[in-house]
């Protein structure tokens, strides 16, 4: 009997505080507080700068350049958005960036999916050499070839043309596209492909009738990443583009100047409105992309 009592005491010993924290509902709540506090801090840290841009975009200039700083606009206005969108080079930049990023993405997906088909579904000598080449290209520093590209572009009469950007952006979008699509291609199950071959399909038919639909989600994801990279690029844009009509979005964002009457004042309201306009689509697309990644890639196709 005494042994049982001893065991009970021994069990009760490990600090009653710990037991209380684990057992009682209040205790469990208290224990969770630092955790949720940490979550809240991360949440605010990640979103506050974007909130601040939105807040500044809706704040009229009279309040924006006034102290003390207001944390919520008391007279929200759309004037800044009107200002930004009526700025000629900004409107052009939205169009230019769409053209550049769109073309680069399409070209990369087209060329890249063909290459990924070869690298992911065929066995041949030199396959791993090509894969290593593509991988090393993805960490290639763009600055390292700026000089050579600068002279090439002027030789081809592409200076200050969007074509210069479409061409040079392939450096970072294409190897990346090939690399990612290859890994998706390789992971596809072989049975559908074999069935198609048995039915007498040619490799090209297998590619666009069987494999391409299967990796469609991967194409969307990869394409979106390539699009974002091209949309955000700054180094080549600032080096190869000169006139405001050819500006891309990053160039335009850095080029807002105050109106003639208030030239000394940086028009932060319009700039923040412009930043909100160019980032909202990206954020929306990224949130969709996140779901894409989570969704199983081949599950539906093989089972269905």
């Amino acid at each position, binding site marked *: 009997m005494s042994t049982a009592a001893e065991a009970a005491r021994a069990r009760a010993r490990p600090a009653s505080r710990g037991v209380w924290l684990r057992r009682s509902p209040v205790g469990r709540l208290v224990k969770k507080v630092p955790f949720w506090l*940490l*979550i809240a801090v*991360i*949440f605010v*840290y*990640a*979103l506050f*700068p*974007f909130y*601040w*841009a939105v807040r500044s975009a809706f704040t009229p200039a009279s309040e924006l350049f006034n*102290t003390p*700083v207001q944390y919520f606009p008391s007279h929200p206005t759309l004037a800044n958005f009107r200002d930004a969108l009526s700025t000629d080079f900004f409107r052009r930049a939205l169009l230019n960036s769409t053209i550049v990023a769109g073309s680069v993405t399409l070209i990369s997906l087209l*060329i*890249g999916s*063909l*290459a990924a*088909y*070869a690298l992911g579904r*065929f*066995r*041949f*000598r030199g*396959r791993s050499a090509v894969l290593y080449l593509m991988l090393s*290209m993805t960490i290639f*520093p*763009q*600055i*390292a*070839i*700026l*000089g*050579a*590209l*600068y*002279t*090439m572009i002027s030789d081809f009469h592409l200076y200050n043309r969007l074509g210069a950007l479409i061409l*040079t952006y*392939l*450096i970072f979008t*294409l190897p990346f596209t*090939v690399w990612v699509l290859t890994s998706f291609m390789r992971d596809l199950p072989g049975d559908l492909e074999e069935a198609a071959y048995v039915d007498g399909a040619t490799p090209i038919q297998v590619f666009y009738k069987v494999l391409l639909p299967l990796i469609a989600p991967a194409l969307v994801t990869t394409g979106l990443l390539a699009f*974002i990279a091209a*949309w*955000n690029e*700054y*180094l080549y844009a*600032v*080096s190869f583009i000169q006139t405001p009509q050819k500006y891309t979005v*990053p160039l335009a*964002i*850095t080029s807002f100047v105050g109106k003639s009457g208030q030239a000394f004042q940086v028009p*932060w309201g319009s700039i*923040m409105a412009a930043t909100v306009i160019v*980032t909202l689509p*990206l*954020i929306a697309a*990224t*949130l969709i992309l*996140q779901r894409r990644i989570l969704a199983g890639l081949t599950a539906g196709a093989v089972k269905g």
Partner: protein
Amino acid sequence: MSSVATPAPVPRRRRRTKLHSRQARLAWLLLLPALAAVSFVAIYPLGKTIYESFTNQEFLAGITPTKWVGLHNYRVLFHDTFFRNSVIETVKFTGITVVFEFALGLIIALVVNSSFKGRGLMRAVMLVPWAIPTVVAAKMWQWMLDDTFGVVNDLGVRTHILSHSRAWISDPSTSLASVCAVDIWKTTPFVALLLLAGLQVIPRDLYEAADVDGASKLQQFWRITLPLLRPAILVTLIFRTLDALRVFDVFYVFFGQRPDTQTMAIYNQSTIVGDGHVGYGAAISVAIFLIISLFVVIYVTFMRVTEE
């Protein structure tokens, strides 16, 4: 792990059938456009850059005829204090941002890895800074750090952390910290997502076994989490370091070409595009390429050493 029996080596049969060579030919045909594009926009320019670094080429070629100058550019570069300062500035930036991004990223990854309501939302929120273009992020922070109307000064003064407003960006003592703040904000969540992916492949039963053995949470972190996370950590560190070493956008938006805050990439860009010194700029490019390669070699060697 290594207990899996290796299959006996099968003598390679001669199966160079027609089908196989046809397959190979088709594969190269499919690869052709990609290889042509990569050669044209990356490999050829790289060769051209190396060649140009041994010449005195100017962008406006009429002024001085281009000729071979041997190692002259590299000798000049070795004594170029602007370049040396840009290397120091870049390495400082890299050190600060990589350390902070890794430490904060690891904490965030560990927090988000525990299951709680709203984890999906949290992961989505973490992608927001990553999706914002660097130039745009730099502009947002430039406004937040404004010396008179900036929210950072306002918050600092309100909470009495700051005694008075500061000119964060133009003050040389805080300018580096302010660019680092932008980069850390923009990249930490992404680092966290990479580490989170690494955390999620660690088998749960390891922790259960450790619980049974009475290991504390801290012991579990040092003995299970950290060793098993090592591959993810190294990949993350390599990619972040390479990225930080070629930093351009944030510095360019904040300081333009202010000489005391130039990075390697900005000095290189302004030499080529601003001054038109293509030959000398090419030598700087090659030097940057070598410096970045040096970091890769250091990491890979370190990885090999610690693996044994």
